[in-house]
């Protein structure tokens, strides 16, 4: 949308030549890295939990047990039970699989479609660029969650379709970021040199352009993971994602709404799980950005989808 404006670096990291500056920079870096380390560690633990969820979960997750319904958190039920007497702790743990799976696959899809579009549009320019980027504009000018909802309504609910819908919604962001980066390296000396030596377009894109635009893409990928998880939660909150009785954090929040007054734990714990996971991805993404790509604009463009 703001392509007429030059890409501006919003970098916070460039150290000022000032007497206290080195200390401050070091402090900043350590803090940033520490958060990134915390994020990475949390995600590692989460991944282990997701893989071994069946072993960790103290209860079977789908068996209905009316006698113990809406029990408050206790030693028997760490996070309490839901309206059908199912253990919320076990369901929160098992549901981590869905979130991670949807996050990775949908963002992977967006990268796989968006990056080539951005490469081609940026490299060839002119009409190709116009057509591809106008198409991306169309997708981008939708309220993201509405687009995902409409796609899901057309394809039908379910985890696979949710991944496709979120992937499509994120495609324009990757296309734009890639295109912007391509534009900045296209006219560089080495690309012109390669061209004058008669290298094919495909070869130039592969060996000269792509490696030079990877950094912002990697950063955007890790930040998008956070927002893809938010998007999945929103969609399953609306009943469009994973089908019951399989647990998903968003779906559990939806179920919790009718019991907010009598069983608030049904709403608190799945929400905390989403918050912590998304925060971990954000920490990691920020750390990666500081290391790889000081341009910070990506985060806003991706935030919209969770709304």
């Amino acid at each position: 949308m703001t392509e007429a404006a030059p890409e501006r670096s919003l970098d916070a990291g460039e150290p000022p030549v000032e007497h206290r500056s080195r200390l401050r920079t070091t402090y900043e870096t350590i803090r940033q890295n520490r958060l990134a380390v915390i994020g990475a560690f949390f995600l590692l633990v989460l991944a282990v939990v997701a893989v071994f969820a069946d072993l960790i979960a103290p209860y079977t997750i789908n068996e209905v047990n009316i006698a113990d319904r809406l029990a408050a958190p206790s030693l028997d039920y760490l996070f309490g039970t839901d309206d059908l007497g199912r253990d919320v702790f076990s369901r929160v743990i098992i549901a981590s699989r869905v979130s991670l799976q949807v996050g990775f696959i949908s963002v992977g899809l967006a990268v796989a479609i968006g990056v080539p579009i951005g490469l081609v549009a940026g490299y060839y320019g002119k009409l190709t660029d116009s057509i591809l980027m106008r198409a991306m504009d169309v997708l981008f000018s939708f309220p993201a969650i509405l687009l995902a909802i409409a796609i899901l309504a057309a394809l039908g609910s379910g985890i696979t379709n949710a991944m496709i819908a979120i992937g499509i919604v994120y495609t324009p962001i990757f296309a734009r970021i890639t295109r912007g980066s391509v534009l900045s390296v296209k006219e560089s000396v080495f690309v012109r040199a390669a061209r004058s030596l008669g290298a094919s377009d495909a070869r130039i894109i592969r060996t000269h352009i792509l490696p030079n635009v990877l950094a912002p893409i990697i950063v955007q990928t890790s930040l998008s993971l956070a927002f893809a998880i938010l998007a999945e939660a929103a969609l399953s909150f609306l009943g469009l994602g994973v089908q019951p009785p399989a647990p998903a954090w968003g779906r559990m929040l939806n179920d919790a709404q009718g019991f907010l007054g009598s069983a608030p734990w049904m709403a608190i714990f799945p929400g905390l799980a989403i918050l912590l996971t998304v925060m971990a991805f954000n920490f990691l993404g920020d750390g990666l950005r500081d290391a790889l790509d000081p341009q910070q604009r990506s985060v806003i463009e991706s935030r919209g989808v969770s709304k």
Partner: protein
Amino acid sequence: MRTRPMWRTLVLLLTLAMIVAACDSGESVDVEDSDTTTTAPPGSDTTSPGATETTTEQTTPEDDEMVLIAAQGAEPDRLDPHLTSAYASFQVLENVYDTLVQPGPDLQMEPALAESWEISDDNLTWTFTLRDGVTFHNGRDFTAEDVVYSYNRIMDPDVAAANAFRFASIEEVVAVDDRTVEINLSRPTPNLLVNIGAFKGMAIVPQEIVDDGSIDSAPVGTGPFRFVSQSPDQGIVLEANPDYWRADEGLPHLDGIRFVQIPDATVKLTNLQTGEVHWIDGVPPQDLESLEGDSDVVIQRVPGGDYHYFALNQAREPFDNPDVRRAIAMAIDRDVITEAAQFGAATPNQTAIPASNFWATDYAPFTPGDTEGAAALLEEAGVSDLTIEFMVSSEFPETVTQAQVIASQLAEIGVTVEISDVDFGTWLDRQGQGDFDAFMLSWVGNIDPDDFYYAQHHTDGTFNFQGYSNPEVDALLDDARVETDQDARKALYDEAARLIVDDASYTFLYNPENVQAWSPQVEGYEVRGDNAIRFVDTQLAG
């Protein structure tokens, strides 16, 4: 180095924020007097000498003391009584329109716009005598021509009224004189009164509001309240009709009603507790227990005529085998399902009609949770590793809950239930295409058994999507349709009901209670068995 006056940037930033604010205030003003707020046409009252002034100003009757604020859980889709099929619309229209006859407190049909009626010896001609001195809200007198016009509109295939099927046996409607209407039938129709009066979908409307297209936005009826306005934030505003045909009894008591829409059930209840609304159209069953003894809330629970059920697709194997369907009906435990979904605010039932109803059939062949019997029956049928896709919709959250309980129960006999929670549009589409293993839903608003048995279980029934066909049942339902002796008719339905349960055409689960709640200020209101919302006798104590 650039320096730039800071005010300039600040101004810009604020401008951006104010684009929004400006648009907002601009639109708010527009809404007041543009046609986006559907207000009763100012001219509609000029023909009425006795009418009070029109309330097209933004002063809603709320300024008065006796305005009841009623919270509905859903938004009315349209206000044309012949075209809508939304319960939320009928909650409002119940108080605006009249029918010739209407269900009394015991759901027996009683006079309304018609004072009396006679049936010819061959049962093919019904003659209605209309009430005298009834006027529409626009001041015009109500006559027999209005009945003829309304019924012809419902039967007009081009209008495609949702309730046209109820008029299937009507050949002709004739205005004999201003006060007399004759209905000629093609076959005896013992339930004609129900067909023309069960609810306001068969309301008498004045032709002029159809002709000028205002029927959807500004309904004009003969009922106790007349329509004032509708807007997203005010909801639907009604005011007392001073010329109501029961005005000499002092009715209606209220000065007006404001219907507001609050989709979330918990929020709706909170609004009642905090006094923002006087009446709500439902209480989440899980909150009933905690509300007992709450002096701020009056709750009334009445056995309702609705029923919850699921149906298996008999066009698909192995559900074409009645034994398989029966096995599934045996394996489930209705007590648990009812407790899980309705927290006890419902009565388990293996048939459709609740015991309190005249048409109820006392029949319960299945032992709750008979997993052994069910497993044996499945084995006999040679079915193993059965997977059933259960189609439900979050639009009716209790169906999602029930499906999870049923999945858990059927797992005990080795049957896997895969739940598909789809939006209701998709649900209806897949039901229509026959693209399902099983679907679950509830059926609402039942007075006469013909309303639902024929549509759902007759081979030619319009709602027989499960593909049930039993010649014996067909014959019984055909006979019951035209049987004018009430006891003989009930015997026919009893026999059909048993066959339907035995064949598990539908597997019935329970009848939910009709639960409504109101503030102790509200007096003279009763929850009805048919869930019609009538505020004609209601008062608000100071």
